């Protein structure tokens, strides 16, 4: 479970790392092209938390199943 969460966090953070430009102007990506990257970031956060939530329900359920 922890490994899965870690995997997803690393995956998502690697995406934002790829999105960075190598120019001198810093923190530009999220402000470029109509600020669509802000929407991408928000939606990524929503979907990542949704999926992590599913994983946590799954693991709680697994514990219950073992007790029964």
């Amino acid at each position: 479970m922890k490994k899965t969460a870690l995997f997803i966090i690393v995956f998502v953070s690697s995406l934002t790392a790829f999105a960075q430009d190598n120019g001198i102007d810093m923190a530009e990506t999220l402000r470029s092209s109509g600020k669509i990257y802000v929407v991408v970031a928000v939606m990524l956060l929503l979907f990542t938390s949704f999926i992590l939530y599913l994983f946590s329900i799954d693991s709680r359920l697994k514990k219950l199943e073992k007790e029964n």
Partner: protein
Amino acid sequence: MFKNWWKILASVFVLYSVVAGLLLKVPALPILHESIRNLYFHVPMWFAMIVIYTVAVVTSIKYLQTNNEKYDLIAVESVNTGLLFGFVGLVSGMIWANFTWGSPWPNDPKLNSAAIATLMYLAYTVLRSSLDEEQKRAKISAIYNIFSFPVMIVLLFILPRLTDSLHPGNGGNPGFGAYDLDSNMRWVFYPAVLGWIGIAIWIMNIRFRIRKLENKRNQI
């Protein structure tokens, strides 16, 4: 960890479809404009719904063959999950239609048949809750479920194609491939579909396991 590979794969596909679906180039079309990106989010809901209803019909048949209660429980939770995806599909389609077709419910044959199909599966849950005796409930609802599946297929894929429909690929409208000339959209669309099918099966799996636990507790 290895047993859950498909959950991780589905998650990665869905997250990929969010990033690529918003950022990759899409064909510039009149009326649709950027809303064409809804294809990556609205259509997979229906794919997931159809796959999960297929799971329901297969397990219903298996229930009638084996009388194993497990299959009945999978069938119920498949229908419940399918209803969730059906409703999300309907509402997301209504938002999209409001801004491209001019009204949230333009009485398009595909919309009406999708609504009827959803009501039909709602009737399945009503039918179940109206029967108290467990074996009878499982048997009758399995038979209802088997009959409603082909009706759903006819409603969603055959009837809208026989008349004029606003949906691509229906009633003289070209299919989506006609708009996506360089086939770039497929690189996002197919992973999105697979990802959402995986998420749907995952939710169904969780609901089924909860129901199994509840069942066990009720029998003690």
